[in-house]
């Protein structure tokens, strides 16, 4: 059974068919790429998988369970975490606080403990902070723990977003254009980080424009154009696929 199964997915915005009858599935442990020209509907697909939009048609299955139409926070609890195209951090609070919120659905104490700071509260808080530190170290920004999120550099903010998504122990991580705005060194580091993430047992679904980045780390790629799937296969196959080439470079002449 595939980890993520997208069947016949469609969405319409006031008559504009942004995504039409999309089918693909992501196997556990894969690094799966979703590419296509601008406006192809890639982020829209992400938004549907993560719960931000409700699809007008089709189904999305996570480990066999239907998740389309659920709230974002429910889907997060089920094991999908994401980063955003435009960085969506909690800007005015510290990096550590961002990481603590990221784990929100995994913290086991309830309202009573919140009000009265019981022993359970203290133990859970300690464990949560340690986990946060560990993840910050994993992505490479352990020293920034106490700084305000908006004080971080652009590259560090992107890493923080990834760390915040990782800290909730997702089974599927959605990365929305993670390499945007990065220089080649940063991109190499990012690629290595994604491979490390896969080693931790997290499946990755990645939208990206940078071809070298995508071809370099993904196992399979799905290509979208005008909201429809035009190709699905390994990176090598995609580079030779005529429809893909046409979509990116235009036909004719």
């Amino acid at each position, binding site marked *: 059974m595939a980890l993520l199964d997208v069947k016949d997915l469609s969405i319409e915005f006031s008559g504009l068919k942004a995504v039409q009858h999309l089918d693909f599935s992501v196997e556990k442990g894969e690094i799966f790429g979703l590419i296509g020209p601008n406006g192809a509907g890639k982020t829209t697909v992400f938004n549907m998988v*993560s*719960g*931000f939009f409700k699809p007008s048609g089709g189904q999305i299955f996570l480990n066999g369970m239907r998740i389309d139409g659920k*709230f*974002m*926070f429910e889907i*997060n*609890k089920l094991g999908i*975490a*994401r980063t*955003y195209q435009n960085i*969506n*951090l*909690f*800007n*005015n*609070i*510290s990096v550590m*606080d961002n990481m*603590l*919120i*990221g784990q*929100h*659905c*995994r*913290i086991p*104490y309830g*309202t009573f*403990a*919140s*009000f*009265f*700071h019981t022993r359970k*509260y203290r133990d*859970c*808080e300690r464990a949560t*902070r340690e986990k946060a530190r560990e993840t910050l170290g994993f992505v490479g920004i352990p020293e920034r*723990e*106490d700084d*305000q999120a908006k004080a971080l550099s652009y590259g560090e903010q992107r890493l923080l977003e990834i760390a*915040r998504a990782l800290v*909730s122990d997702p089974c599927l991580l959605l990365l929305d254009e993670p390499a945007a705005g990065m220089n080649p060194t940063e991109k190499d580091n990012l690629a290595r980080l994604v491979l490390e993430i896969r080693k931790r047992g997290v499946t990755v679904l990645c939208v990206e424009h940078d071809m070298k980045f995508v071809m370099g780390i993904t196992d399979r790629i799905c290509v979208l154009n005008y909201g429809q799937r035009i190709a699905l296969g390994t990176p090598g196959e995609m580079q030779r696929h005529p429809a893909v080439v046409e979509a990116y470079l235009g036909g004719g002449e």
Partner: protein
Amino acid sequence: MKTLSDKKFSGKWLRRALAAGIFALVVLVVVMMENNILFARNRYIYVLLCYIGIYSIATSGLDVLFGYAGQISFGHAGFFCIGAYGSVLLSHSEWGVAKLGITPLPPILSIPLMGLVAALIGALLSKPASKLVFHFLSLLTIAFNQIMYLVVANFPGLTNGFIGITRVPPVKLQLFGATLLDFTAVKSKYSYVFLVMAVLAALLILKQNIVRSKLGRSMIAIRENQTAANGCGVNIMRAKTVSFAISAFYVGIAGGLLAHMVGFISPDTFVQNTSVIFITMLLFGGSGNMTGPILGALVITFVQESFQSLQDYRMLIYGTFLLAVILYQPAGLVGLGRSISGMFGGKGGANRGAA
């Protein structure tokens, strides 16, 4: 590894010691005044302290909603009303439940009970608005305020209408008929000050606990970035509803304390203007932290008392205050303090985090 957490830890204890010290000082001053050790006995200052304490409780509650969860309510005077009228009707010997033949509760019980009722009503009220665009909550709270005012003003059989209810019972702690603590004192509010301060201290500790917990963080998350909060697993609707209920609880308790202090309530206290005054106090003092609401309550109450002669201009002044604060210093007095300390090399700027 460098233990930054240790540094924060000592900072936390220092602040706690400071807060406790200030409380102890206030208590000491009040006791000394009463026993003629310090200045001549000026009874009016006790009333003032009670008002400051009560408004601090209410403003702290509103801060949980606005400063931490980022939601706005223009009708919290409605919860003030529920706390006040509710507690009176439950404990009065002639009005309310007494009319139905049920023995009234002692105020020491009816005040917290009505606080919980206010919380429940707050939860019910904000639930439909929690899924909708944020201004629906504003509309709902305005309507709520209007409705509460109409209820207490237009049903004389229940609440004696515009005339109000007098002879509100005083607060005593009694067990099996024996009086352990008596906060009455009709002539002077000296003993009542202790009650208000004790409740304020307890509720401030509760607020501090909430803010530093998972619950508090969920509120801060929806204030900062609702979409990201959603994506991090925070149940947005629940966070909004819970923060509203908590704020309603605080304001309800404050209302109950007010009723039993003054000994008299009437509908005029619970109009829309009172909600605006709460907001003015909160914004003026600074929202999103522990001291701001208290500072705001302190200063605005003083302003109110000092300018008794300008009573008619009161709301105009508040409105202008509020506008000025919003335009020029939305972080309030606390924000001003932080930027000044920032100028002197401290960790300035507004880090409106869980601290």
